[in-house]
Every structure is written in structure tokens, then in C-alpha cells.
């Protein structure tokens, strides 16, 4: 088998706590499908038959009851539950399942919605015998107004600095603004080997990594690394150019490895070597190809550890980890699939005006004289007469009484909107009750128990 897929679905959604109070992030509805359905669908479309899903018990319970997951996902899901405390990082989770991993892995995050041609990333991994291949995309500006935001100013997110070589494929440098205190410093050895480096800041990391099995084994030995994105990837990118992994003979490597094993030292080196290494070396020597030109060194500068990145120029790539991203994803995700906009089991009265870009979920009831534009209505919601819904997301089990006017808002599950309420750019939390005839603009309406969480 070539690759094993691992889906990380234990994340808490720390940047959108209002949404995830009652519903864990992997099960948030986007276009009336749970969020984790999208990466699973991507893997299924590409041809995977089995996925290891790392998640919490709560999500596992919800998965088994959700009809979408049961019907649409035909792959075999191997669910591994971990504790919900949130102290376990993604790398810790990989260490947890190390026994299940028999071959190279493809790690996907549950909040990724994309239509990327996955073979682009995996081809880089295969062709160059890379230790790591990842996916990044040009960041999109979020155009929709986010409820609860005071003013148009977005909080300055920590930027990522990504350095790639002249071909745009080889990853040379990766650091987050938070880690760079004084400035961005680049080692001379990198500059000598790759004199032309492009540093990009406007990229979104899709959190899709293709890694060699040796990396997982390395993680098992090095317990200090807890996050893939935050620690493992920058470490590997740096390690590409460190002296110990370049230009050494195979025998020396093997001897060192043996020595280290007998010493029982904790700092094990990340060594990528395969059987028949001499044959591979011979093939590379005899081949008249080089990945760079202008200096005297051989292909890849003799380095054994290589990290590659595929940067998507066009196409959809969203990481739904903030409220703005969630709203945008709801707008665009339905375009990925050709499912009918209106679920067949929904009951919609004839005198309802429904735009073509709205989605109505199963078992909905929409009464007369309502107008629904550019919105997503979840399953089992009931919308009474004379309601105007525009640019909004209404989740499952919501009741909207007559005469309401809902614009640009997010209504979470099981909420009740009283008669004649007027909500503009609001976020109504889970199970909330909006009093009739209220007018709210740009507010986050959550229960007091939610407010207690910090």
C-alpha cells in the first residue's frame, strides 16, 4: 500500500468558540453537511479506501448518528478516540497511532474544504522521494461581513513567512511571525545553495501533509514535538540544510545510527534511507538531471531530506477555523458538488421566493410568503410566514416565527427566533431564544453559561 490517510478531527475550534459551544468543530454544518465530510469526500474521490480518523468521543457519537456520514462516506473509517482536554497536539496524536502506521501517511485536517488535484501534492512526494510534501494556497480576502465584529478592521493574524526556491516547489524556509523576534534571519548555507529565494506571506497552509513513515518513527522517539504545523514542519525544513543530513556516505550514516541506538540518546536524527540505497545512488549518478544549476554540486546538493510544497494558484481552498472562514465556506462549498439545492424531503410552499443559490436541508418546512436569498437552511428547521432571510446561515432544528427579518446572520442549532424579530449581522448561539419584536444589529447573542467560558 502506498499511502495511509489520517484525518485529524479532534481540534477544538478555538477561534470560533461561539459556534463550537455545543457542536464540536468537525460536525459543524457547512452547506448542510458536517465539516469533516469535505476532507473525507476529497479522500474518497481520489481513491482512498480507508481512513484513520483521530477524534473525540463526542464527535464519534455524533458521527454514528449523522445520516450524511453514514450514507455518503463509503470508505472504512477507523476511529481512534483521544481525550478532549485539548493538550494533545497533532504530532502527539500521530505518536498515539504510531502502531497503526505501516507506510507513508497523508495527514488532513478536518476543517479543510478544497478542490485541489491531490495528485499534484503526492507527485512531488513521489517523484523527488521527499520526506514531506504539503499544500498551500493563496489566501482569499473574506468579503462577507462577520457578525459580532466591531468595525471592518480585522485582527492582525500572525503571518507565516514561507520561503521557496526559484521553481516554487522546494520549501526552503518556514517561520511564523510569532517566532521571529528580532527579524527574519536566513542561514548562509541556504543562500549559498539557493541564491534565489521567494518569500511569501499571503499563503494559507491547508494542513495537508504527505510524510514518510520515517518521520512518524522519528516523532515516536522525540516526544518534545507536539504540533505538526507549529513544530515538526519548521524543524524538518531547517533540517534539510543542517550538516548532518548532507553529503554523508551511507556507511557513515548507518554507523552513526547504530552508535546512537546503543547510546540510548534521546536526540535521534531524522534519517531517511531506504534499502538498495547504493542502487538509487547509482541511478542518480548516471542520470543527467540536476534540480538546480550554477554551482558545482549534484542534484539536491546531496541532501537526503527534502521538503516540497505545492502552492495552489486557482481553485478553492478554505480552512474553516474562524467565523469569517465559516461564513465564506458556506457560500462557496455548495458549488463544489452538484447536489440539488433543495432537499427532496423539504416541504416548501408554493408562494415562497427562493433564490437559486440557497440550500434547504432535509425535513424543512418553509411556509408561504417567505423569501430566502443566498442562505443555507439546515435540517428540520421550520420557517413560518412572511419571513425574509438573506445572506444567512441557519443551522439544524431552528424555528423562525412569522414576520422575522434575518440578514447576514448565523443562527446556531435549536435556536428559536420570536415573532417579528429583526436580526442584522448577528450570531445567535445554540439553543437561544430571541424574544419577539427584538431588533439586534451586529451582536453576538449567546447564553450566560457560554459567556462564562474563557
Amino acid at each position, binding site marked *: 500500500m502506498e499511502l495511509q490517510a489520517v484525518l485529524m478531527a479532534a481540534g477544538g475550534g478555538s477561534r470560533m468558540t461561539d459556534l463550537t459551544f455545543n457542536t464540536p468543530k468537525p460536525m459543524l454544518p457547512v452547506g448542510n453537511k458536517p465539516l469533516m465530510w469535505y476532507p473525507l469526500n476529497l479522500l474518497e474521490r481520489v481513491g482512498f479506501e480507508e481512513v484513520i480518523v483521530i477524534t473525540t468521543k463526542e464527535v464519534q457519537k455524533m458521527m454514528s448518528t449523522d445520516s450524511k456520514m453514514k450514507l455518503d462516506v463509503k470508505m472504512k473509517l477507523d476511529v481512534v478516540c483521544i481525550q478532549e482536554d485539548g493538550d494533545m497536539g497533532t504530532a502527539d496524536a500521530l505518536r498515539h497511532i504510531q502502531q497503526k502506521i505501516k507506510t507513508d501517511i497523508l495527514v488532513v485536517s478536518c476543517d479543510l474544504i478544497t478542490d485541489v488535484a491531490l495528485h499534484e501534492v503526492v507527485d512531488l512526494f513521489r517523484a523527488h522521494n521527499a520526506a514531506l510534501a504539503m499544500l498551500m494556497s493563496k489566501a482569499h480576502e473574506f468579503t462577507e461581513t462577520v457578525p459580532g465584529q466591531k468595525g471592518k478592521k480585522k485582527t492582525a493574524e500572525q503571518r507565516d513567512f514561507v520561503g521557496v526556491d526559484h521553481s516554487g516547489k522546494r520549501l526552503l524556509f518556514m517561520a511564523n511571525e510569532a517566532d521571529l523576534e528580532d527579524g527574519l534571519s536566513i542561514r548562509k548555507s541556504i543562500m549559498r545553495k539557493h541564491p534565489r529565494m521567494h518569500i511569501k506571506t499571503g499563503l494559507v497552509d491547508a494542513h495537508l501533509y504527505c510524510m514518510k513513515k520515517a518521520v512518524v518513527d522519528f516523532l515516536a522517539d522525540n516526544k518534545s514535538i507536539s504540533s505538526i504545523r507549529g513544530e515538526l514542519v519548521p524543524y524538518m525544513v531547517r533540517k534539510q540544510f543542517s550538516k548532518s543530513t548532507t553529503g554523508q556516505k551511507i556507511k557513515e550514516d548507518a554507523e552513526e545510527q547504530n552508535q546512537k541506538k546503543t547510546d540510548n540518546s534521546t536526540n535521534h536524527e531524522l534519517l531517511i534511507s531506504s534499502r538498495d540505497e547504493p542502487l538509487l545512488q547509482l541511478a542518480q549518478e*548516471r542520470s543527467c538531471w540536476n534540480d538546480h544549476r550554477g554551482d558545482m554540486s549534484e542534484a539536491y546538493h546531496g541532501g537526503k531530506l527534502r521538503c516540497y510544497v505545492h502552492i495552489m494558484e486557482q481553485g478553492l481552498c478554505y480552512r474553516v477555523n474562524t467565523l469569517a472562514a465559516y461564513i465564506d465556506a458556506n457560500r462557496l462549498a455548495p458549488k463544489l458538488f452538484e447536489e440539488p439545492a433543495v432537499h427532496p424531503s423539504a416541504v416548501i410552499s408554493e408562494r415562497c421566493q427562493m433564490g437559486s443559490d440557497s440550500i434547504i436541508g432535509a425535513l424543512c418546512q418553509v411556509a408561504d410568503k417567505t423569501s430566502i436569498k443566498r442562505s443555507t437552511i439546515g435540517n428540520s428547521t421550520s420557517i413560518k410566514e412572511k419571513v425574509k432571510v438573506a445572506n444567512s446561515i441557519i443551522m439544524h432544528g431552528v424555528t423562525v416565527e412569522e414576520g422575522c427579518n434575518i440578514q447576514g446572520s448565523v443562527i446556531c442549532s435549536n435556536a428559536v427566533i420570536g415573532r417579528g424579530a429583526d436580526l442584522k449581522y448577528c450570531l445567535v448561539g445554540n439553543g437561544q431564544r430571541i424574544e419577539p419584536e427584538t431588533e439586534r444589529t451586529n451582536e453576538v447573542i449567546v447564553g450566560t453559561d457560554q459567556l462564562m467560558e474563557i
Partner: protein
Amino acid sequence: MADSGDTEGAGKNDEIERAKTEGKELTKEEKQRLRKEKKQQKKNKEKKEEKASQEGGKEKKHVSSESPASQPTTQTQTQKAPSAVPAQVPVPASETPAPAEKPAKSKAELKAERRARQEAERSSKQGKKGEASQQAATGKPKAPPSELQPVVKRLPEHVQADNPEVLKKLAKKLERQQIPLRSDYGYKVSLFSHLHQYSRKAPLTQQLGIPSTVIHPAIVRLGLQYSQGIVAGSNARSVALLHAFKQVIRDYSTPPNEELSRDLVNKLKPYISFLNQCRPLSASMGNAIKYIKKEISNISSQCKEEDAKSKLLNCIDCYINEKITLAAKAIAKYSIEKISDGDVILVYGCSSLVNHILYEAFEKDRKFRVIVVDSRPRLEGREALRRLVQRGISCTYVLISAVSYILPEVSKVFLGAHALLANGYVMSRVGTSQIALVAKAFNVPVLVCCETYKFCDRVQTDSFVSNELDDPDDLIVTRNGKTQLEHWQQVPSLGLLNLVYDVTPPDFVDLVITDLGMIPCTSVPVVLRVKNVDQ
């Protein structure tokens, strides 16, 4: 002229074959003749409206060119009357001396039969000649010569990309093996429209599932490396292929009720089709595959699976060691005798063998300098230049357009080869024949270095019939911010041609240095025969 040359060559081949299989050919010849008759009768029915006058004229010409060719073949045989008859009809010319050796039928009966058949064949020839002349016009010169050979040779499918039936057959075969079909890209120049042309931006893996289950991951990786050019060069491709096969064999387990010797060969077939789709196989790869298949089929059924596997892995290691590593050493030893102090050596492109020879010569303290000739679009010479300079050899670098300027300085030309064909022609990177030609004009000796495992028994006299078309977008280059050829597909009369190989005639090659010694170009069929007898 090319035709008669071919028939002579074909005649010689027949002699060799006949010498080997005397006595067995009779019934074979009969069967082949009957088969041909049936074919021709079918074709005759289809093509009855062909122009008769054209055929008449062409046939006369063809017959006159055939008769001198057929006469030497008949004269060398000590046959009686039957040999005089076939001078008129070209096809059975080479076959007819053989029937005289038949003891069973009487000669009169044979004569009568033959005359009747010849009449039928001559009338059906009318249709066939018209067809053949038309096909020759569209660049398929192999059709007429193939009629003269007694063995019916089929055109390999990779040179019939413009024949829809062949394409359909190929698609069916690939579907059976669950391998996606790679589609051709862009407008093909008409002379080469019978070859496949693929784009590097549309890799075969697009249509494969990501955790490839049908094809072993090592083979997928290899196919990708071939199509992207990461593994390029005859030796490198063969070594990488054998390395991937080793992994396949390691991961292989015999299914129940199957024999390893038969099942493993069947498993390898789809992999080979896949690699062929990624990039057409080279002659060296073909020979390596033949060797492995032979080794696998020779495994006895008593052998346990683990023993069989380790034996196969050993065989592969031995093959690489003998045919590539040791051969390179032997060739280097012979070549060093030919390199003297003060030499100026010209090399073309990046040949791993030639580079190896130059390293060895430099180690042995020969004083020489090298001129590296390079050509677009591959510009492999830059890599050769880097490797030589890294060792301390002093080099000059020119592009192929300057080769006639630089040749007066050159004392020897060393060329690498992709394959050595059975008629002594050298198949190598495009541009090699040009260099050999110019060197000949300047009276500079041309030495070709080639290991024996690259010898193949194909016969080719021109670079059109069997070649490889690379991605035409490689020819697009951006200078000063302008890319002139960016929209070449929209210009209807423009076609980009990126040939990979060309064929050098043996007249331009002075010596071939192989691991068996230094031989003239025309001794290649002898080496092939010796190899076949050995194996």
C-alpha cells in the same frame, strides 16, 4: 536506393537465419505463403479500384530493383530450376530456394503449384503496390521492405499512433490491465504523426487513484521520474528500472494455486505498460526486461518462494554489476589506450559512460582537454560540463551551431549511444549524427562507446520511423520578458517538434568501444549472434 539497400540487408539476414534453421523452414515457408495469399486476396477485394497504370509502372521498377537483389540470394544457393522462376516475382524470391530441398513432393508438382500461386500473387500485387506507394509517400518506408522478408514482421504499436485501430487495441489492452491511457498533446508535425507526443503537465498519475493499488508504488514513482526527466539517460533508466523491480519482487507473494514463474511475469506486464505510457521504453530497458523475464520463467516450480525471490534479487544485482559497472570499467580501460597526451576530445551532451571514461583517463594522468558540445532544448551539456570541471578536467563549452568552428582544434570525438542497431547504425541523442557528419568531413576520428547490453536487433536507417517525441512546450523560452511561442497552439500552420533521438550511419563511426573490445560498427550483428547463442 534505400529500398535496395534494405533488401540486401534483409537478404543477408535471411541467409543467417537459413543457415541456422535448415530443414525446418520448408513447412514454415509453405504456411507463410498460404497466409500471405489469404491476406492479399482479402486486400485485393478491398482495393480493386486502384489505378492500374500506376501500379504497372511501379511494379516494373520494383521488379527490376528486386531482381538484382534476389539474384545474389539465389546464386549463393546451389539450387537448380526452381531458382530461375522466382526472379520475376519479388515476394517468394527469398523463399523459393528452400523448397528445392523438399524430398516429399516431386519437382514438377511444386513448379505447377508455385506458378499458380505466383499468378494469383502478381494480380493481387496490383492493389498492394498502389497501397505501398501511397504509404511510402506518407513516411512509412518500412512497408515495402517488410514484404520481402520471409518472417511477417508487425510494426510495433508505438510507431502507429495515427492508426485508429491500433489505438483502439492499445486502449483495450490498457483497460484490461487497469492502466489509464495517456492522450496525445498538441499538433504533431505530419512527418512524425505516427509517434506519440505527450505533455509533461498532464502526468499519467492524474488518472490513477492516489494510493495506487493496481500498480506498485515503486513503479508509480519510477514512471513519474521518467516522465519528468528526473531519471534520464540510458544507463540511469535501466538501473532505476531494476531497482524498482527489486522492490516489486520483495513485496510479491505468490497467490495460492499459482506458480511464481508464471504469475510474477504476468504481474510485471501491466507495470511495463504503465512505464511505457509514461515514457517509451529504451532499448537498454527492453533488454533488461527480457533478461528478468527469462530468469523468472527459468525458476523451477520446486523452488520455495523465499529462495526464488532471493535468487531473483541476486540475478538483478549480478546483471547490474556485470553489464553496467564492470562493463564501464572495461570500456574505460580500452578507451584509455586511445587517449594520448595533448588530445583535444569532443563530447556531446551528457553521456554517463563517456564521462566515466574521461574521469578514469584523468585519474591515469593523461593530459587532455575536453570540448563539450550542447544543444537545446535539453542543454544536458551543462551537467556534463559541471561533472568534468568538478574533477579538474579543463573544458570548453560550445553550442552545436559552433561545431564546425571548433572542429579544427579537435583530435578525437567520443560519443555515447542510446542503442546500437543490428545494421550498425548508432541511435543516440538528436544531434549526434550531425556531429559525426561534421567530424567525418574534417577527418576527425569518431569513437562510440556503448555497453553490449544496449545492442538491439532492430534495424533502422532513418530517424523518422521509430523515434520519441518529447513535450513541445520545452521549446518555449522566455527572453527579456517576452515569450514568443507562448500561443503556438493557436497558430494553425505552426507545429513544434522536439525530437529525442537520431540515427548515425556506420560510415561516420570509426570505432565502437564495447566491453568485448574495440569493434567496427558493422560487427554488431556478430556480437548479437554470439550473445544469442550464449543465452
